[in-house]
């Protein structure tokens, strides 16, 4: 049957779901992001005490000491729901794919000086293990965090980190002609090389951190905030000094990703800190707790990676991070 819509004036009864209208305070149509996000997680009337915790509910605000009147306020400035996220990433992986095949086709890695190749294997490729830990940490935030605004973004971040660990693995495989030797060497460095031990120890400590928001601060704000500038800016610059562009090309995904990651992380920190003085103080305390440890642990690594430029690289990373936290309103 053909519906003659011209003769019908069909007025909607409502423009969006009630949970979204309550959140925005408006009866108007809402974005796909808000309809996919607001109010989706169960909040009350849980049936059973979890066997995995004596004093927490399945979803529990007390899984962190941070207090929010409305956890949904921790919105993602990228407005990522699953569809928007996966479409954005599919474009980025397309670009990454082109970069990798460009490097491969022109055999660009063959012209890599031996010392640079070895350096990439010993100081860069082991980061795949740190990215794996970042994947687990963000999965933890996604599992035990509160409110879809932050937990879905953490979940996407977790998958991003797995993707990044896999891109780094691929670089490792390209460096040794798919034999796996570079991965073995780099893993041995991560496991045993003294330069890596302080940061490996911190990584393992993070994996046992209980408060998910503290983990967010330690991993996504502080560790990433120092490690990414160090590797994808300072170290990347160093690799291109001798006219080598292959490293920068193969890590374009990561440096682009980090710019976007920063927008999300800073926005979460800003909104949580603006909620109350106690949140602000608590976030500040966590930064004070993790920053010096991470910085110290990165020293030997920066030394290996950057040589005499190590201190300048670390200083630049710290300056970037502190500019970000100041901008987010952390006292």
């Amino acid at each position, binding site marked *: 049957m053909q*519906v003659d819509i011209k003769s*019908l004036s*069909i007025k*909607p*009864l*409502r423009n*969006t*779901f009630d*949970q979204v209208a309550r959140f925005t305070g408006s009866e108007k149509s809402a974005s*796909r992001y808000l309809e*996919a996000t607001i*109010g*989706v*997680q*169960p*909040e*009350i*009337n*849980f*049936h*059973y*005490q*979890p*066997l*995995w915790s004596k004093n927490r509910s*399945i*979803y529990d605000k007390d899984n962190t000491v941070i207090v929010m009147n409305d956890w949904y306020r921790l919105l993602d400035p990228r407005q990522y729901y*699953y*569809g928007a996220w*996966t*479409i954005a*990433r*599919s474009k*980025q*992986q397309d670009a990454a*794919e082109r970069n990798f095949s460009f490097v491969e086709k022109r055999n660009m890695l063959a012209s890599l000086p031996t010392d640079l190749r070895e350096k990439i294997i010993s100081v860069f490729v082991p980061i*795949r*293990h740190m990215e*794996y830990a970042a*994947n*687990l940490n963000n*999965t933890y935030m996604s*599992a035990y965090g509160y409110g879809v605004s932050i*937990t879905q973004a953490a*979940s996407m971040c977790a*998958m991003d980190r*797995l*993707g990044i*660990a*896999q891109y780094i*693995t*691929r670089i490792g495989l390209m460096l040794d*002609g*798919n*034999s796996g030797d570079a*991965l073995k060497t780099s*893993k041995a460095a991560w496991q045993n090389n003294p330069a890596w031990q302080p940061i*490996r120890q911190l990584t*393992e400590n993070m994996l*046992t951190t209980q408060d998910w928001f503290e983990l967010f601060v330690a991993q996504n704000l502080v560790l990433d905030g120092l490690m990414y500038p160090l590797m994808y800016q300072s170290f990347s610059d160093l690799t291109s000094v001798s006219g080598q562009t292959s490293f920068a090309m193969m890590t374009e995904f990561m440096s682009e990703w980090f710019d976007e990651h920063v927008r999300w992380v800073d926005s979460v920190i800003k909104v949580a800190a603006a909620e109350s003085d106690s949140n602000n103080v608590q976030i500040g305390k966590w930064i004070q707790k993790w920053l010096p440890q991470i910085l110290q642990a990165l020293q030997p690594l920066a030394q290996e990676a950057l040589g005499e430029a190590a201190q300048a690289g670390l200083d630049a990373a710290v300056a970037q991070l502190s500019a970000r936290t100041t901008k987010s309103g952390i006292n």
Partner: protein
Amino acid sequence: MEQAKKMNMKEKYNAMTGDLAWDFSYKTEAEIFPLSDFEGIKIEDWSKWQDPFRLTMDAYWKYQGEKERKLYAVIDAFGQNNAHLGVTDARYINALKIFLTAVTPLEYGAHRGFAMTGRAFPGVGAQVASQMQSIDELRHAQTQLHTISQYNKYFDGLHDPFHMFDRVWYLSVPKSYFEDALSAGPFEFITAISFSFEYVLTNLLFMPFMSGAAYNGDMATVNFGFSAQSDESRHMTLGLEVIKFMLEQHPDNLPIIQRWIDKYFWRGYRLLGIVGMMMDYMLPKRVMSWKEGWEMYFEQNGKMLFDDLARYGITMPKFWEQSVEEKEHLTHQLWLTFYSYGHAAAFHTWIPDDSELDWLSEKYPNTFDKYYRPRLVYLREQEKLGKRFYNPSLPQLCQTCQIPMVYTDPKNPTKRVYRETIYNGDRFHFCSDACKEIFEHEPEKMSQAWLPPHQIFQGNCGGATIPDVLKHYHFTENDGGEFLHSRDNANWNLWKGLTPDEEAA
């Protein structure tokens, strides 16, 4: 430099996943994965985990990104073309109401549950498989919301699904089912959801809704169904992989897993009763009867699956025979229950027309004319006399499945099944031997259930009268009750230019 041997696909995938982990030395594995052994499941070697898909993230993004582009193109077109007018008739929308309030929240629950297992399991393969399913389940919850968003603009009962999920009496059936799994350990969760639900029962959830959508002109939901299909087949494969992996790891795992299979088969089956009711009563164009669905998807396909698992010592889920004995009664009893409590539901109920009653007689030759058709005809006559029947009391619920205690004994179809047990001095009631046994195995946990009628009587649901409670649920006067008198029906007739007589014809 000597060219080393190249890695094969399997080795390469391991480099992309399993090899990312390392030997912890500053913390112990028990500190990093503290939830991995309290359930008694013994895993000797996580590296034996075989991922059947070997899907890396770049490939995942590529495939999923393509699917999302297509899906949202259709959703956009659907909205622009007033395509909600293309469904068979407005009664169909009530199936979507059940889907959005009862199923979409479970997709979200699965997203969080698989995030938990994705962090809890010590093996990278199992972590990655869980995490991918976790993010897929987020996809399903969100694409369902976006698809049904258009219907919410024009029909009642869809406007506040998550508020309702946390509170409404019949939605405690899916909520408690899923929370049973979420509040368990990671191995029980994955057995419950990946295997018992995704593998054994998911066809009976997916097929009725998605084929129902196709038969009834709901192209948006069909589109979602097609798009989710490849995710679902990955999830089903994971379900089987999980079970085989656990069983192969240690013989002590068998009895634990068998008990979980028994429990979640039965709880999942009880939950699917609502889907069965939808199949038999709510779709204006029917796909197949509940009985036919159960025969095809459980009695035949399910049996084959369990035959295949026999070599591991797994047997058919306990009480499965009961589900077969009930198949000619289940949906009729449930529809009559919801019809009676139609004033307290967020979807409409009605008595099928004559041709639909004939269809039911044909599909249920042994029971329908004898036990149910006369009641339905009587209720229809009463409605015509202006005496639409509503039950003003609150139903007594089964402590385990939380469905009202309405099911009868198939051997004696006019006698209801009442089972009870005493725990800590309190008496608990059950609809079946299976629900009773599930309780008796875990009385401390199952006795905690948040039973809506009890909560109403205790004053925790907005007040002492039905209108107070409905307000607490955020139901409007248009959400429930008789379909014939509903705003949905009136609007539909208006939009389609039909008079009520034409509509009925």
